[in-house]
């Protein structure tokens, strides 16, 4: 491998690193709920604090348990959305491509008045 190619690869990795860094900075510290999007439209917003099962049309079933959401059932052949695991208040995303379903963390921390931790510190 030539020097030029090493430099080329480093530049690509640098772009990815900066992109990731910007994403991390923009991300709020915690998410209290998740939004489910189906075919580009909002299907619903669900609180992570409440354990529940969510049927998404007839194609997928998501489950919120102990503050974590995961996909537990899907009718597509590859089940990649189930392998994507769970995410909680740290944020994340679960995508089911065949059924065009996206579950992503939603920023609710901007709402004033529900910041319990600050109240305790004061």
């Amino acid at each position, binding site marked *: *491998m*030539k020097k*030029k*190619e090493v430099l*080329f*690869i480093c530049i*690509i*990795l640098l*772009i*990815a*690193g900066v*992109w*990731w860094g910007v*994403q991390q900075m923009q991300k709020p510290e915690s998410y209290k709920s998740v939004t489910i*999007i189906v*075919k*580009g439209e909002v299907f619903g917003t669900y609180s992570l604090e409440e354990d529940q099962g969510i049927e998404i049309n007839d194609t997928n079933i998501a489950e919120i348990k102990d503050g974590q959401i995961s996909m537990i059932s899907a009718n597509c*052949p*590859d*089940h*990649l*959305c189930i*392998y*994507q695991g769970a995410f909680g208040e740290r944020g994340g*995303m679960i*995508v089911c*491509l*065949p059924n*065009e379903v*996206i579950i*992503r963390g939603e920023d609710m921390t901007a709402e004033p008045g529900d910041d319990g931790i600050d109240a305790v510190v004061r």
Partner: protein
Amino acid sequence: MKVDNKKLAFLGIVSAVAIIFGYVESLVPVFMGIPGVKLGLANLAVLFVLHRYTLKEAAAVSLIRILVIGFMFGNMMSIIYSIAGAALSMIVMKLMLMKTDFSLLGVSVAGGVTHNIGQLLIYMCIMETTSLSYYAPVLIVSGVATGLVIGYLTQETSKRIHL
């Protein structure tokens, strides 16, 4: 029209190998711990043909592979995703082979990254959301990693196959 029988037979074998690579990969849904990320073994066959012949032959091998794999294990959507990624990476790799003096390793890295970016762009169009750009950094890094592996394998294969 004069048909180059040797080339025809060779491209047939390469296409068959590419299809088997695709099948083998479909058995492993989770690679490197990231769902959806694949090594892209079929890219080995495409890069090899691209290096030895022209864009036309590589496109033929790639299209046959995508159609056969798509009809056997996927659906219409997965065929569209695959064509988008394969077409973009093939064109970029060909341009790099022609315009730069990069080795197969560098060319393969560019191919791996553009393949992932091409697919991501198509996903974003179909799902009508930009939130998928969340995955871009992961896909770029995995494109570099798989590109290096495939580039190395292609280099070693090219050294050993003489026609």
